[in-house]
């Protein structure tokens, strides 16, 4: 009920309602996202975690209107950014104005044939028209300074190929911060980078988002960083959200067996050696299990799990802030990994 109210008052920076995505191929239909809802509050930082191939990027691309369709077949009850639908031509405008996105691989997200200043200039010109050349230049230098870029003048005159991976991602972040958007989407911004740079970039992102009071949706495999940066977290498995709740609580006391396994799978430097992974693989999207998609890998699987997919149910005192899609969640089996 509370959620409906917030929806009405446009208090969500992002509101995705029942998004489904599938692909038709020779073997049949790939049901990648069967039906997914999520939201990001104003100035809220939300994490989205799950193993590779679970559909995180697909969701983000759909939100930024850059999911190639066809071949993807997208259906939704509505995706709203700051209360405005992103559907149609007007929606595209809304995305351009109010969404920023950082992509996985900085080596492919900058145009290889244009210099950095040209690329930044074109964005500034369309976002803030009617400024002088020197003003634009100052804006560019400012935004590069904001991401603590060394030698910004030289960077502006370079082609992407002349920059290192870390520098390119800084440029990408600088570009996404240039426009004054409510919502920032970061799709594994550090996956393609060295571990040493990974931390720097995530810290930078965290700092900038906090300073500018932006809403952030962060996809990352660096679970430590997700834990540090975000307020709330969604755990995705095979196209479904299986657990959603306050980051601290979810990380401390995960309820869904998949979350438990996922968190246990991250090696902890201070921990007791190599952690357990989750046995098995993601199910085929072609012919996904009828019941819970995680059932076949689940240590707590029951008959019910194999028949009907569980819905997200609240497990916290305050209505809806912590939800889990599992029939056996929190039935005291959290020790199964131990």
């Amino acid at each position: 009920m509370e959620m409906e109210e917030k929806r009405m008052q446009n208090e969500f920076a992002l509101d995705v309602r029942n998004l489904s995505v599938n692909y038709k191929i020779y073997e049949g239909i790939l049901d990648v996202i069967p039906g997914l809802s999520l939201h990001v509050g104003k100035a809220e930082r939300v994490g989205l975690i799950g193993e590779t191939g679970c559909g995180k990027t697909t969701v983000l691309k759909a939100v930024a209107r850059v999911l190639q369709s066809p071949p993807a077949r997208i259906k939704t009850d509505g995706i709203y950014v700051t209360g405005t639908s992103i559907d149609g031509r007007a929606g595209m405008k809304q995305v351009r104005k109010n969404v920023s996105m950082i992509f996985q691989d900085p080596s492919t997200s900058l145009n290889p044939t244009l210099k950095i200043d040209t690329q930044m200039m074109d964005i500034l010109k369309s976002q803030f028209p009617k400024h002088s050349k020197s003003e634009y230049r100052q804006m560019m230098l400012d935004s590069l300074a904001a991401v603590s870029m060394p030698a910004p003048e030289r960077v502006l005159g370079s082609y992407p190929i002349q920059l290192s991976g870390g520098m390119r991602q800084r440029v990408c972040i600088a570009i996404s911060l240039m426009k004054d958007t409510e919502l920032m989407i970061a799709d594994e911004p550090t996956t393609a980078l060295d571990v040493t740079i990974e931390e720097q970039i995530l810290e930078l992102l965290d700092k900038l988002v906090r300073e500018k009071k932006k809403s952030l949706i962060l996809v990352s495999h660096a679970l430590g960083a997700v834990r540090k940066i975000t307020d709330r977290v969604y755990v995705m498995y095979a196209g479904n959200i299986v657990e959603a709740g306050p980051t601290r609580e979810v990380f401390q006391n995960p309820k869904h067996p998949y979350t438990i396994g996922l968190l246990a799978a991250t090696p902890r430097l201070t921990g007791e050696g190599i952690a357990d992974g989750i046995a098995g693989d993601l199910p085929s999207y072609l012919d996904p299990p009828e019941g819970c998609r995680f059932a076949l890998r689940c240590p707590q699987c029951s008959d019910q799990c194999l028949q009907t997919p569980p819905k997200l149910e609240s497990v916290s005192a305050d209505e809806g802030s912590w939800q889990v899609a599992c029939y056996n969640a929190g039935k005291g089996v959290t020790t199964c990994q131990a």
Partner: protein
Amino acid sequence: MKILKKTLRRVLHTLLVLLALSFLIFSFIRIIPGDPVRSSMGPMVPEETIQKIRSELNFDKPLPVQYFYWIKGIVTAGDFGMSLFTHRSVGEDIARYLPRSLELCLYSALLILMMGVLLGTISAVFKNSWIDNVIRVFTYFGVVTPPYAFAIFFMLLFSYSLRLFPIGGVPVMPAEYVRTGALGLDALLAGDFALYGKVMHSMFLPVLSLSIGGIAYQTRIHRSAMVENINADYIAFARVAGVGNGKLIFKHLMKPSFIPTFTVYGLQVASLLGNAFIIEVLFRYQGFSQYSLSVIMNKDPYGIVGVTLIFGIIFAVVNVLIDMGVSVLDPRIGLRGEA
């Protein structure tokens, strides 16, 4: 310095390839059954005269010696040998016919680039719309139809039925106008714009017939390059970052798409002159391609080596130009060494 060295190496390499090519053609010609001199002079000419010409043209010497004399002639005097077919110096013939063909090819090359990029862009931007479908059907026909079929079709339509263009031939150039040999250029140099208009009028159908296959192919390449790049991450990133649609298409998408377009364009332009020969024959244009055809069909030894060498040189020059163009477009090529 580096670029200079690279260019020099390239030129040297090209020269070697051309030398090898001419030697190859030379060796081919030597194994022509029968005597080219005799067959060009006819049976009535006495044997002594034939022998004299043979020795003048170095046909009585061993192949390497003959080849050496030929190269020496080119290097020292720009002499490509004598044509047995026109009985003129081959160099003279080339100088006379090449410019007008180059002019034909130049117009065609410009038309191909402009129309190919224009149609390809329209087709890619309005992908799967009716206009894209119309353009794609055109490109299918354009690619599979031989140039002579277009020429005949245009003749029937524009010349015989609509009577908009002449059926063939070119305006007569007053002798005092002739400077470069290129028809339009000479008319312009003489300041005779009426004649230039006439030349253009007579060249319209030949240029169109020569270009249409190229336009179709270029359109296809440009369309697919643009469609492919539309899916690239950097376009998605620029779009979300807020670059306007116009700029996104005409700058961010166009520039990388030009790389394959330009590479293919080079091949197209390089083969224009070779494709021109039927067009020149059909429209009685009397250019270099038609001349090449005559010397080839008449088995004229020095003529054949001369024209193949010219084709080789033009091929090489166009390739160098295209490579330069591509490296301007694609900083990855020029900068790879530095990074």
